[in-house]
């Protein structure tokens, strides 16, 4: 509608234009005036009057006008005549026009005709309206009165009064025919169900299983997860170079050798050769073989991932505290006490002050030493080799139990120390009722000048005191049933608590607070209640041959040393198995000692070393006992029969260790 309305003024305008432009009609290249007029002149009235159509003087149709850009004409008129292109305006011309023409602003260039068209007022208003969002038609009323045909009110009468056709009430014959035909087809079995879609043959998905991990075996899965690349081919060396350095080239000898060698034995599978230019290098004839061999290698060599743990070996070690934090413990050898001529078999320290040290040796002497200076102040000559000495644990008795060869145990009054105590002890020995013995007694007590002598039925290995100083026990060397005797000093009586042989008894120790006795056989330790005469506990030590035994101050822990180099710590409250088993010595452990005051433990061995441990015992159950090796002490010389350290004991007040050596010396280690 708009197009028609606009078309009309264009026509008029063009007329005007033509009239105007007449004086400045463009000229062609020959300078002749182009007469356009005659083109318009012959137009008859038909053209103008055809109101329905646009005045299309140009008949090229709706094609892009730029196709005629290069032509002199811009199209053809009805009669097939070319319509000449109006002359192009120059810049100055345009400018002058702009300046002079008051209607310049309302002129629009028409591409179809190639001329400017002056818009009418009406058209300009329309453009204004469109631009400002109004209705383009001037005077259009959008709110014209509306004739309401269908109202919201419900009518009681139909809008039209036609009756319903009959067909609406009659079943369709056509449908009936169709249905009967289908029924017949079903009856005859011609009918088939709905057609199933035919599966078109698909291409096999080679990689489908790659993503789906359902049907993958474990080994496949692991292989996928832990991808193992093939080992890399070694990089070429100088020898492979086409121009290797001289030293890589074979001389005659090497060449001969290479040629003579079996193919498998050759170090290089080729012969290095020299070419002065790369282009002279012939084709490599072994390429295929080499590839093939590589494939064979990969195929035949199973690849396996080696699980290597990168653990720092120091991390695996237990976290030990710094020994300097665990001081004091003995570190240095202060001096040797010399005097014994044979092995020093046993040592014992005076209980409270620790001034005196008693030692017994192979030479049949018991010597009393001053600890501070290492001076021997007294020597007792016994009748046989001394095997064990033990100071009475009671401070005001200067008694020393000595076991020596010839089946004797002696209770000596050392006569050293406090003179008052010496006198009291003398009196005590004098009072001992040795006369009131039964005739058939196995152990006979005899009194001599400053000692009691017990004649035992067997050779005695060890003597040990009960903490109260009245009872002491002795162990026989031989493997017999009645090897352990418990003696009572105040009554001068001895009894044998065990009648049955339960193993070869190696050591006995009294419980430090109760009337109990620990008896160590070669592999077991049994704890007996002496008052009730019952077995309390049997401990499995794990040692193959126990040699010595020590308890702590409360009798809750046992320390065992074995001839099988083992050291065991038995915590008696933690069952009958050892809490710790250590093997720090390279030879048999001869003796174990636990310090009364400091948390120190020492084991001495035939390998000539004493191991000092920091061994703290907690009575608190929540805390674990501590055992750390802190020092290895060396002293004494090995004797020809491979014995070195035979016995050890701690100083009662100082963190000092005393060891008895097979070379006849006693060593004092101090902090």
């Amino acid at each position, binding site marked *: 509608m708009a197009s028609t309305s606009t078309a009309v003024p264009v026509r008029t305008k063009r007329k005007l234009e033509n009239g105007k432009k007449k004086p400045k009609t463009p000229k062609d290249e020959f300078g002749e005036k182009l007469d356009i007029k005659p083109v318009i002149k012959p137009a008859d009235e038909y053209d103008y009057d055809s109101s329905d159509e646009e005045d299309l003087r140009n008949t090229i149709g709706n094609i892009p006008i730029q196709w005629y850009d290069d032509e002199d004409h811009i199209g053809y008129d009805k009669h097939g005549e070319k319509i000449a292109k109006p002359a192009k305006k120059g810049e100055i011309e345009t400018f002058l026009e702009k300046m002079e023409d008051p209607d310049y602003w309302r002129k629009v260039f028409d591409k179809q005709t190639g001329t400017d068209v002056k818009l009418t007022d009406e058209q300009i208003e329309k453009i204004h309206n469109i631009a400002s969002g109004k209705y383009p038609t001037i005077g259009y009323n959008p709110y014209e009165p509306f004739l309401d045909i269908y109202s919201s009110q419900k009518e009681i009468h139909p809008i039209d009064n036609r009756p319903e056709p009959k067909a609406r009430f009659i079943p369709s014959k056509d449908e009936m025919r169709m249905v009967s035909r289908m029924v017949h087809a079903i009856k005859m079995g011609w009918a088939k169900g709905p057609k199933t879609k035919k599966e078109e043959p698909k291409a096999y998905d080679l990689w489908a299983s790659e993503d789906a991990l359902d049907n993958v075996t474990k080994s496949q899965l692991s292989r996928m997860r832990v991808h193992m690349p093939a080992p890399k081919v070694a990089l070429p060396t100088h020898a492979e170079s086409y121009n290797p350095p001289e030293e890589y080239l074979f001389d005659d000898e090497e060449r001969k050798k290479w040629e003579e060698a079996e193919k498998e034995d050759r170090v290089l599978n080729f012969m290095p050769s020299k070419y002065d230019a790369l282009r002279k290098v012939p084709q490599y004839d072994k390429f295929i073989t080499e590839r093939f061999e590589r494939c064979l290698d990969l195929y035949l060599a199973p690849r396996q991932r080696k699980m290597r743990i990168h653990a720092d070996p120091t991390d695996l070690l237990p976290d030990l505290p710094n020994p300097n934090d665990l001081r*004091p413990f003995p570190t*240095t*050898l*202060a*001096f040797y006490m010399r005097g014994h001529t044979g092995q020093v078999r046993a040592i014992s320290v005076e209980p409270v*002050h620790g*001034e005196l040290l008693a030692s017994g040796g192979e030479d049949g002497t018991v010597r009393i030493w*001053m600890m*501070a*200076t*290492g*001076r021997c*102040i007294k020597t007792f000559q016994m009748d046989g080799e001394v095997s064990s000495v033990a100071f009475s644990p009671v401070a005001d008795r200067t008694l020393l139990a000595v076991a020596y060869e010839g089946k004797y145990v002696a209770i000596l009054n050392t006569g*050293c*120390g*406090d*003179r*008052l105590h010496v006198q009291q002890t003398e009196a005590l020995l004098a009072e001992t009722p040795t006369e009131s013995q039964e005739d058939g007694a196995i152990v006979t007590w005899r009194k001599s000048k400053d000692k009691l002598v017990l004649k035992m039925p067997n050779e005695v290995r060890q003597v040990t005191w009960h903490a109260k100083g009245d009872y002491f026990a002795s162990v026989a060397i031989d493997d017999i049933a009645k090897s352990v005797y418990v003696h009572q000093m105040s009554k001068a009586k001895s009894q044998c608590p065990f009648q049955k042989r339960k193993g070869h008894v190696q050591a006995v120790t009294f419980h430090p607070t109760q009337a109990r006795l620990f008896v160590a056989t070669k592999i077991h330790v049994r704890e007996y209640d002496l008052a009730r005469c019952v077995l309390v506990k049997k401990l499995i030590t794990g040692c193959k041959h126990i040699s010595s035994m020590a308890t702590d101050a409360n009798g809750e822990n046992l320390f065992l040393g074995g001839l099988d180099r083992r050291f065991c710590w038995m915590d008696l409250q933690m069952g009958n198995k050892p809490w710790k088993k250590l093997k720090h010595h390279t030879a048999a452990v001869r003796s174990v000692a636990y310090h009364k005051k400091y948390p120190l433990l020492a084991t001495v061995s035939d390998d000539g070393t004493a191991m000092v441990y920091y061994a703290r015992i907690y009575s608190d159950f929540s805390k674990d006992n501590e055992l750390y090796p802190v020092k290895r002490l060396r002293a004494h010389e090995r004797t020809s029969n491979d014995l070195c350290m035979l016995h050890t004991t701690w100083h009662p*007040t*100082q963190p000092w260790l005393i060891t008895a050596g097979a070379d006849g010396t006693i060593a004092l280690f*101090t*902090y």
Partner: protein
Amino acid sequence: MDLSESMEMDNGTTSENLKHVQITFFSKDEDLPEIPDAVFDVPTVAECDDLNLLLNKTIQATDDAWKERKFEFLVGETFLRTSLAEFIEEYEVETETILKVECVIGIEAPKPLHDIQAPDWVSSVQVANGHIFSTTYGGDIVIVDRKGKETKLSVNSANRILKCSGIVRTTKKSQLEGTEFIVGGENQLLTLYEIEKGALVEKIVFRGHERAVECVSVNSDATRAISGSVDTNLKVWNLDPSDEATNYEKEEEESSAKKKRKKDTRTKVPMVTIGGHRDKVSSVVWCPWKSGHAFSCSWDHTVVQWDLELAGEVSRIKGPKSFTSIDIHPTSNLLISSCTDAIPRLYDPKNRDGAMVKQSFIGHQNGWVESVKWNPVDQNQFVSVSTDKTAKMWDVRSSKSSLFDIHGHEDRILCAAWNEGLIATGSADCSIKIFETS
């Protein structure tokens, strides 16, 4: 200075690539001639010998009568023992200013004087009045005079172990006659002996200790003695001849007491017993600056200063190990101690921080230092004897190395004394060695 240049030439090194320090010598010793206070440019590689050469030449240049002597050099408070460079590095000495080096006439090595064979292990030695008094484990008392004349005296009870001794009184003319001394031993007694006509006369017996007497010390006016024992107690004894209060007589043994009185032997009980140590008291000395005070050291790792009148503890020094011996210098009041290890340690007991070790002297090989003794004349020198069979003479100002090492004993040295220019050491090889110091 041409001398220093010549010295450099002696060293055979070119001076360009060596560090130099500027030093100047001075001395506090008035006996020395004037030391020219010139500044020397000395290469840091120079050692004591080089400095000695330099100094001697310098003095010779001004004083023609000068004879070459050996000097020791002190920088600050410390002896120069190494090369200057090492010293500067160790003690972080400032080298931008002129280094002032004190010159001290070097002391001569102690000359061995006598080697006395004792009948048994020597347990204690004392030097007094030109004589060396020593006790042995066999119960003998060996007295040697300066000329090496030996007097062996045996205490009357046989096989009695003597462990300590103290000189009570000496006569004027360096004669033995009339000398009183006190000995203590394993029989828990202290005995005061007087030498009358070349024989020992037992004057007073002090009873009271319950175990072996380990140490005894007599105060300067010989009125009191203090002793320590294995039974952990200290006991103070009255030595005053006029004192009667502490005399002790057994009533039931009237006759024997009379006998003893005839023999002019008295028995005394202690004035005061002081308990406070928890282990053996190993050494006791009187306090030099306060009468009625004494120091004792024990195996319980402490040195305690006691007020004997109040019988109470004044101060306590906690040591690292069990003490074996202490000595206090009479003028400097410093306390030198030895432990059951190889390091003598110096303490300042007057200081509030007495527990601080002022100096540790490292030099003994292993084992214990059994005894330390000051030189009463020189407040910088002391001697230590060790179970490593050596005695060492130390200067307090040189803790890294001793002045002199005295070898010769074949067994552990158990005791030492230094007095009147004599060092006496007693050993378990049954010998007493006497050295003379300048």
